[in-house]
């Protein structure tokens, strides 16, 4: 059903990929003719044009008229990369770049700008035969994206997220099918509430330049830090636009911005992030938007996040993350010590939790295991399409299997600090997260998990390493991984209980799991944490990563209760 929505069946013939609608842009008439012929031989429907502007016009006129764009890099009227960006932002179509120049830097630039492939001229027909895979891949991601957005919406609707857990199958760590079913049910809810119900999965909004300008204006007005889909939507004042549309566009926009940022800031994004190094984009946003960031397990270094939050007393961990387009995803990370907006609400036990998250988006098959805390129960998060990841809470050390690069763990002193300092490192392999996680968390005593340390101590020792192993597939062919860009934060206001920061899973392509087992001093905190989300991978998958920004554990941070889960409730599913 979802697939059908994605338009596979129409308006082309059913024998996909036959009839794929390709737009070829090249100023070289000889190549244009050759490519046209080649594509026709592949049974694709071809439109050619020799100017970038003409191409954009064509695309804008027939909003849903093309499936994929192939463009040369060098064109007289507009840089091919610019065209690429426009197409990505406005139409969100897969774009393949071509050039006679195969220099690595050029290819990299193409990938950075969001190209899903880069072909070298002379191009053989066999290379063109398989371009349909990019279309297919995108559809899959969109579906997931939409679902997660819808899930997000529905979760918002419920406000507490508990409803979602009530359903039996959430706890079973099911696959996404059940998630989908739930989605469908929820959609009905959502539809009522959404301003434009028909837009749920169907009509793709075309982000024209004007619309995008409005969007950017709204974003700037609100302040990038505080931005959220609802606010933007309100400001934009476009009646037919839905919050989801804005949310997904915001995702891409963040990616785009962070890509620009990263271009000059690559190094910084590796390794522990000093929060200051990152542009303060609160939202994690950059998590795997399908578009440019397909994280694939590659050779990208893993990023680890570690942050400590003081618990119960406000664990406000400000998580900010950035995705490094170069393949590192920076998940939101807690602010560096000083900046850590860990508000200590109750100062009663200055516990600080230190959590380091390793996000390694490694190869699909790798499993990460961490030493577990008290109970060594591996946490598994089964995502439908992702291999299993095992998380174990780690008491002292993290072991990563499969050669995930181990992120620098907080210094031993930290561990030493408190006997019970617990450190959880999660290396989400974007694969499957199982809700078992939650179950396993139970036994761990809060104390164990989040040792309380003096504030300063914890802060000082913070190692905010954000290492996300994100291999950006960036639209490259083989993304093995579709990282979920679902993130869930279960923020908890601690009150004597440990701080729990739930796993955040990024939907879409990047999945970052934050293990916070610690926070549950007692029974799991499931209740407290609504970690139940963990239970349901599908659920997790549904929370769009852009949730991240909402989850600011920071008091001063504003989060719009209407948009995000009740962070104040401490939990979010």
């Amino acid at each position, binding site marked *: 059903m979802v697939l059908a929505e994605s338009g596979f069946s129409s308006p082309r013939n059913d024998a996909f990929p036959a009839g794929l609608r390709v737009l070829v842009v090249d100023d*070289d008439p000889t190549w244009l003719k*050759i490519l046209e012929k*080649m594509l026709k031989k592949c049974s694709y429907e071809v439109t050619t044009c020799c100017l970038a502007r003409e191409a954009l016009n064509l695309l804008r006129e027939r909003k849903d008229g093309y499936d994929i764009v192939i463009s*040369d890099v*060098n064109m007289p009227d507009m840089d091919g990369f610019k065209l690429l960006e426009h197409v990505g932002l406005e139409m969100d179509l897969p774009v393949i770049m071509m050039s*006679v120049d195969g220099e690595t830097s050029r290819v990299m630039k193409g990938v950075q700008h969001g190209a899903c492939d880069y072909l070298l001229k002379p191009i053989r027909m066999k290379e063109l035969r398989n371009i349909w895979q990019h279309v297919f891949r995108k559809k899959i991601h969109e579906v997931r994206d939409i679902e997660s957005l819808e899930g997000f919406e529905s979760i918002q609707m419920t406000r507490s997220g508990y409803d979602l857990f009530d359903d039996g199958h959430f706890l079973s760590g099911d696959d996404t099918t059940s998630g989908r079913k739930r989605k469908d049910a929820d959609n009905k809810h959502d539809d009522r509430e959404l301003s434009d119900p028909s837009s749920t999965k169907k009509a793709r909004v075309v982000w024209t330049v004007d619309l995008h300008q409005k969007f950017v204006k709204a974003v700037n007005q609100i302040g990038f830090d505080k931005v959220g889909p609802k606010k933007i939507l309100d400001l934009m004042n476009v009646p037919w636009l839905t919050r989801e549309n804005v949310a997904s566009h915001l995702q891409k926009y963040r990616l785009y911005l962070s890509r620009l940022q990263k271009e000059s800031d690559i190094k910084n994004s590796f390794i522990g992030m000093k929060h200051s190094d990152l542009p303060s984009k609160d939202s994690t946003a950059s998590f795997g938007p399908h578009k440019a960031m397909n994280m694939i397990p590659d050779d990208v270094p893993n990023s680890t996040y570690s942050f400590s939050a003081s618990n119960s007393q406000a664990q406000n961990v400000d998580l900010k993350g950035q995705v490094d387009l170069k393949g590192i995803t920076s998940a939101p990370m807690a602010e560096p010590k000083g900046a850590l907006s860990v508000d200590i609400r109750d100062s009663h036990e200055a516990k600080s939790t230190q959590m380091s998250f390793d996000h390694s988006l490694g190869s699909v098959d790798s499993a990460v295991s961490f030493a577990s805390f008290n109970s060594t129960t591996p946490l598994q998060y089964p995502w439908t399409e992702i291999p299993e990841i095992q998380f174990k809470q780690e008491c002292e050390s993290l072991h990563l299997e499969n050669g995930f690069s181990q992120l620098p763990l907080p210094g031993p002193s930290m561990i030493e600090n408190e006997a019970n300092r617990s450190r959880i490192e999660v290396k989400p392999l974007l694969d499957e997260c199982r809700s078992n996680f939650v179950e396993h968390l139970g036994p761990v005593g809060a104390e164990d998990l989040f040792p309380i340390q003096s504030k300063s101590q914890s802060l000082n020792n913070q190692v905010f390493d954000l290492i996300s192993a994100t291999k950006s597939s960036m639209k490259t062919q083989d993304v093995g991984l579709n990282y979920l860009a679902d993130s869930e934060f279960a923020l908890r206001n601690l009150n004597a209980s440990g701080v729990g920061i739930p796993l955040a899973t990024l939907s879409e392509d990047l999945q970052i799991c934050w293990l916070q087992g610690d926070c549950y001093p007692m029974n799991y905190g499931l209740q407290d944490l609504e970690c139940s989300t963990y239970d349901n991978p599908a659920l997790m998958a549904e929370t769009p990563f852009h949730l991240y920004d909402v989850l600011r554990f920071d008091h001063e941070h504003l989060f719009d209760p209407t948009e995000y889960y009740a962070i104040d409730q401490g939990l979010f599913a």
Partner: protein
Amino acid sequence: MDRNRLHNQVASMRRSLFDQGYLDDQFIQLEELQDDTNPNFVQEVVTLFYNDSARLIQNIEQALNSSPIDFCKLDDYMHQFKGSSSSIGAKKVTNECTAFREYCNAENAEGCIRSFQQVKQEYAILKRKLEVYLQTVRQASQTA
């Protein structure tokens, strides 16, 4: 008889074009693309190539003759020309283009000028050979 002779001629010309490195694999791609819907595909593409090349060659000449020489522009033109010649598999021409671009990068005007002479020469030779070849092909198909 005539037909056979012509066909043999076509075959041997073709072989020599490849053996002597004037054409490469890409040309075969073009031949393979030719079919009933486009029975003259190869000829059409090659004609497009000639036209485009003439334009580019002129641009390059102009750029080389101007002073000071705008190497950026030169490189750009040559890049286009290289792309174009690669489209039909004009191997020698493409190679000369690469050599030219090196001189261009080094901002070596003398080198560029000399190299460009080579480019033009190879282009002229190829064009001539191709024209004869394709004409023979046409004749051979007509006598069928």
